[in-house]
């Protein structure tokens, strides 16, 4: 058996089968390198909550195009926020700028409509809003709410400062003549000033409608107002009644101002009427101190000078009052607006106005409370010049100048009566009475004299003589008859003089020539 063992030729060559694992290895390596090279940046976004974010599922989108995927979601170091790590595509790298914004898109039901319905079934995603800043970064802080307008949208951004939130919220429209031209991006309450701050975005097309004399006012809901001018009810469009909104425009009679830059601030007026009440920017602050009840005087009430509106009541300085204590006059802060008196609405006008007020006070200008409406009982501050107060000067109170006041109403009546009484007091009544007494005494003496006693007898004699004279000219006396004959003769003479006058008038030469009477003219007949 052993001799029959064949020779097995062992071919020790390299089998071509090794190409297969080599190709597999090369392919694998190529795939690895390709993937690594085409791998985009990994970014880190900090969000307040991970609601709607799932690692491996939640996508990062730009304009609804996938550009990345969330890799992991973990708690932040402070345990109060979450850190989302997402891998972006290579082409999305250029989108990562310093001002790139991220927010989570989920279904939202807001006053401005419903958004993100598609995310109800497909799940939320992270929206990337590309920035255009030159600097790049890979760590971001996500927005808790989607911004109303994405960053980089051309347009104008201004700030509004309002007294109360009312029905104005983020997302509400900005209207100009009732047409939406922008939106409120965000609303927040400033704790320091206790004012509402609104970020407003105006679309680029309508940007130039906003200038320095533009005023913004709230058109939300229904405004019901009872003021010194009466009762007013005001509504906007149905939409703004339902969801609110802010309108802007120029107040009546104010010329357009200069264009404004991004970040300009404006006051948000509660309604259009208040815009027209308060259309001026510059106001001089004065304090008037009333030594009477100011019931009915409200902030915003007019300040009139002889019926012409010159300013408004800004504030009733209660805090100053509490310092000074009970019984003190109540300080009221008013502003006098130079723009109302056709002076320039700027600092120059204000200086001019301040001079005018100082001069007027020297001439006797006083402030007093007056009743504007008997129905509502609202009051206003009336300025008027009272000549007998001339020579007074502006006072000083709580760091501001004060205009001296006069009481009004019942107090004013008292004041007037007391003035009258003091005038009466000033009359020289005692001297007057003395001279009157003297006059009466001398009259008495006159009446008691001898000649005065004889006066009636003399009068009797005189009257008898007069009677005799009158009797001599009575009806049947000779004097009467002669008089009538003379009058008849005079009448006759006058008649003949009249005839002579007529003749002379018709024919003046009749004094020399005989009067010729011409025949009556006969009108010609039969001639055509």
């Amino acid at each position, binding site marked *: 058996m052993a001799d*029959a063992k*064949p020779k097995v030729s062992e071919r020790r060559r390299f089998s071509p*089968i090794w190409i297969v694992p080599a190709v*597999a290895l090369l392919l694998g390596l190529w795939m690895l390198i390709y993937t690594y090279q085409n791998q985009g940046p990994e970014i880190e976004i900090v969000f307040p909550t991970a609601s709607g974010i799932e690692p491996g599922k939640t996508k990062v989108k730009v304009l609804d195009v996938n550009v990345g995927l969330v890799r992991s979601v973990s708690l932040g170091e402070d345990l109060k926020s979450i850190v989302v790590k997402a891998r972006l595509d290579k082409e999305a790298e250029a989108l990562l700028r310093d001002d790139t914004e991220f927010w989570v898109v989920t279904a939202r039901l807001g006053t401005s409509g419903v958004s993100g319905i598609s995310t109800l*079934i497909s799940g939320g995603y992270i929206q990337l809003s590309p920035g255009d800043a030159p600097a790049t970064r890979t760590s971001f802080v996500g927005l808790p709410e989607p911004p109303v307008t994405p960053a980089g949208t051309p347009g104008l951004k201004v700030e509004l400062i309002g007294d109360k939130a009312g029905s104005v919220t983020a997302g509400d429209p900005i209207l100009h003549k009732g047409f939406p031209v922008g939106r409120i991006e965000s609303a927040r309450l400033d704790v320091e000033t206790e004012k509402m701050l609104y970020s407003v975005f105006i679309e680029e097309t309508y940007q130039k409608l906003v200038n320095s004399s533009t005023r913004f006012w709230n058109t939300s809901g229904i405004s019901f107002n009872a003021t010194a001018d009466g009762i007013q009810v005001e509504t906007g469009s149905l939409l703004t009644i339902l969801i609110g909104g802010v309108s802007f425009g120029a107040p009546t009679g104010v010329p357009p101002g200069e264009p404004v830059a991004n970040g300009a601030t404006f006051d948000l007026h509660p309604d259009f009427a208040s815009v027209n009440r308060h259309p001026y920017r510059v106001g001089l602050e004065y304090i008037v101190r009333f030594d009477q009840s100011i019931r009915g005087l409200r902030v915003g009430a007019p300040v009139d000078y002889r019926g012409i509106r010159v300013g408004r009541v800004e504030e009733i300085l209660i805090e100053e009052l509490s310092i000074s204590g009970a019984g003190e006059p109540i300080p009221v802060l008013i502003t006098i607006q130079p723009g109302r008196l056709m002076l320039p609405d700027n600092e120059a006008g204000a200086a001019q106005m301040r001079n005018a007020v100082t001069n007027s006070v020297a001439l006797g200008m006083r402030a007093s409370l007056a009743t504007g409406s008997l129905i509502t009982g609202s009051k206003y501050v009336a300025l008027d010049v009272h000549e007998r107060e001339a020579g007074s000067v502006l006072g000083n109170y709580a760091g501001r100048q004060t205009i001296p006041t006069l009481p009004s109403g019942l107090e004013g009546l008292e004041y007037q009566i007391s003035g009258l009484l003091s005038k009466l007091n000033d009359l020289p009544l005692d001297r007057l009475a003395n001279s009157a007494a003297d006059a009466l005494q001398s009259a008495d003496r006159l009446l008691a004299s001898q000649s005065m006693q004889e006066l009636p007898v003399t009068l009797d004699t005189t009257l008898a003589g007069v009677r005799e004279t009158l009797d001599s000219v009575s009806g049947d006396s000779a004097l009467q008859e002669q008089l009538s004959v003379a009058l008849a003769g005079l009448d006759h003479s006058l008649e003949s003089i009249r005839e002579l006058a007529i003749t002379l008038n018709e024919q003046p030469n009749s004094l020399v020539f005989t009067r010729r009477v011409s025949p009556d003219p006969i009108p010609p007949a039969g001639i055509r």
Partner: protein
Amino acid sequence: MSGVNSPAPETAASRGLACCHVCLKLSPSTAHSCGLCGASLHTRLPDSRQRTIALTITAALLYIPANVLPIMSTVQLGNATDSTIIGGILLLIHHGSYPVAAVIFVASVIIPIAKLFALTWLSWSISGTHGVAHRQRTRLYRATELIGKWSMTDVFVVAVLVALIQLGGLLIITPGPAALAFGAMVIVTMLAAESFDPRLIWDQEERQHG
């Protein structure tokens, strides 16, 4: 004459005969081609060990993307979810489908890995000298060949799901790149098992005893 229990069984090669790979006719090993069908004649499969090792390495390489890349992409209401083999098994366990998870785990993880190890070990064992009985190794080889085709279960599951579940916008299942890699890996392991000549086990036995 040579019994089953004989430690060194007589082989055709030891008698100077070679078996044709195509028609299985025994010819003298001195001949270059089969006298019946004309196919070239080898005592053993040429480069059997090299081929097996090369294909095993290829399969091992393919096994990496097959597990790392997603094997199936489920688009449910516009929300695409990629799942890997291991991820799918974990999901099934999470949903409580333990039997299905077990089947897929065995078919897609245990069997391929076992096959890779078996082929590696077989290739290695025919070169060295060690005490594992040739009979056991032959059994191992048979088992490897037998279960090889069944490890396509995962690919089969994906194929069935992709074909069945096409519910428009509601639910769509598409195969992922790992399905390709996994399928290729199974085929390559089958080829590796095919290219392994079990008679090499006998030769080694012969060398040890002879």
